[in-house]
């Protein structure tokens, strides 16, 4: 295989086939994305074109379309006005769209968190912090290069391993369990008997500025089938963005009991560079390149 002709022919004949499970995964995800893409299509086009062209388009549009556009604009306006009550689904979606989040979970009455999870959708990484003091562990899941790095503070050592599909599946489960922010994976999973209601601020001991408080209460399977547990998740939701800032979890065994406060979660929304700085501070710069982080990630600006 040494003549240019032969090389060209051989490259032209290179052929890979996708695996059946890959096809399924991609088609499933793309089909789900298609629904959103079709629904938001005209809106995105509207944002892409300039103001002048928008004005021209509106002037030429049929009155019904203009009326519809005005109604949509009013609806959008109402959604961002303070005081509009979001549904649990809207809070869920607002959080899912947040590019960078930090979720810190505490046991009731404790001041030291038992877990922290930083997630960056722009960098496509997750960073877990578990344990306390000398026993603290950090685990960085760097998805773009499918590498997991674990730092053990006790030994000041870093362990690196390739991320497998099985590890990814386990990560999804453990992240969902550890976040303790929403009781259900999405709004579709909320039980029929669940009640979502605004809470009178005067009844709430904790104050979180610029938020409104909502309770989601539902019946969960208890220790015994005949004794279902009653659970409540109290969410402190930003009045403008509808992003959750704090969640409190309560449970009780019998209807006549008072709810017991179990855990609470604080949510912050750091910048991409803050997460990068944290990773650099945790895993350290490379000895040969003190100005460069060992971790690189996927800077959003490159997209």
């Amino acid at each position, binding site marked *: 295989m*040494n003549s240019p002709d032969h090389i060209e022919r051989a490259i032209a004949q290179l052929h890979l086939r996708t695996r059946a499970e890959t096809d399924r*995964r991609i088609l499933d995800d793309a089909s789900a994305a298609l629904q959103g893409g079709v629904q938001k299509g005209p809106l995105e086009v509207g944002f892409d074109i300039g103001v002048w062209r928008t004005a021209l388009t509106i002037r030429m549009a049929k009155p019904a379309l203009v009326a519809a556009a005005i109604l949509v604009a009013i609806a959008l306006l109402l959604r961002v006005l303070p005081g509009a009550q979001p549904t649990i689904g809207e809070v869920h979606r607002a959080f899912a769209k947040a590019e960078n989040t930090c979720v810190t979970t505490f046991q009731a009455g404790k001041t030291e968190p038992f877990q922290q999870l930083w997630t960056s959708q722009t960098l496509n990484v997750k960073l877990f912090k578990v344990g306390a003091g000398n026993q603290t562990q950090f685990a960085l899941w760097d998805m773009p*290069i499918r590498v997991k790095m674990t730092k053990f503070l006790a030994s000041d050592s870093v362990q690196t391993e390739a991320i497998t599909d099985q590890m990814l599946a386990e990560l999804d489960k453990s992240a969902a369990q550890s976040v303790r922010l929403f009781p259900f994976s999405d709004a579709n999973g909320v039980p029929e008997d669940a009640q979502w209601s605004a809470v009178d601020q005067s009844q709430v001991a904790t104050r979180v500025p610029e938020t409104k408080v909502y309770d989601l209460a539902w019946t969960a399977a208890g220790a015994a089938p005949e004794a279902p547990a009653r659970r409540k998740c109290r969410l402190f939701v930003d009045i403008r963005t509808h992003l959750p800032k704090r969640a409190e979890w309560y449970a009780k065994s019998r209807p006549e009991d008072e709810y017991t406060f179990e855990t609470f979660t604080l949510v912050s929304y750091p910048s991409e560079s803050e997460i990068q700085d944290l990773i650099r501070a945790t895993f350290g710069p490379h000895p040969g390149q003190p100005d460069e982080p060992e971790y690189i990630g996927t800077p959003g600006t490159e997209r």
Partner: protein
Amino acid sequence: MLEERRLIGELKRGDKEALRQIYMEHKDNLLTIAASLLHDPHAAEDVLHDVFVSFAAAVGGLQLRGGLKNYLVASVVNRARDVFRKKRHHLVELEQAGQVASDSDGPERLAVFGEESRLLTDALAQIPMEQRETIVLHLTGGMKFKEIARMQGIAISTVQGRYRYGLEKLRMILRDR
């Protein structure tokens, strides 16, 4: 071309069957391009996934100037460049730290291509990304030099030069095997 327009039209109306047809038509070629550029079939599958999910998500506002195939190929190349850049940077640092070896000799990858193809893709991985892109886009993607030039925003003579130099390097690498 008419068939392609029909499919795009149906896709914009949310037709999943149109999406499936487009995917089945292009998937293997796009995967081969991504794997040839990245020298890593797993990363190539991720690229294919990201490209189709983004394509489906953006279809409402999609306005194709060229053909659909070139649009998808350009999307794959852009994603592959991102992955390549990050992977190279990260692996270099990890290797310098003595923590991991490069994954370029992984047994899974060896099993994906046949022996001759493996030699070829190993050689492709050794030439600069710009030359690799030009060769793969022309030979595997079936793009003309002027289409590659338009896609990359460079002169057609530059594309031809990269192709020629890249092919010459491949010849030298394979001669030494």
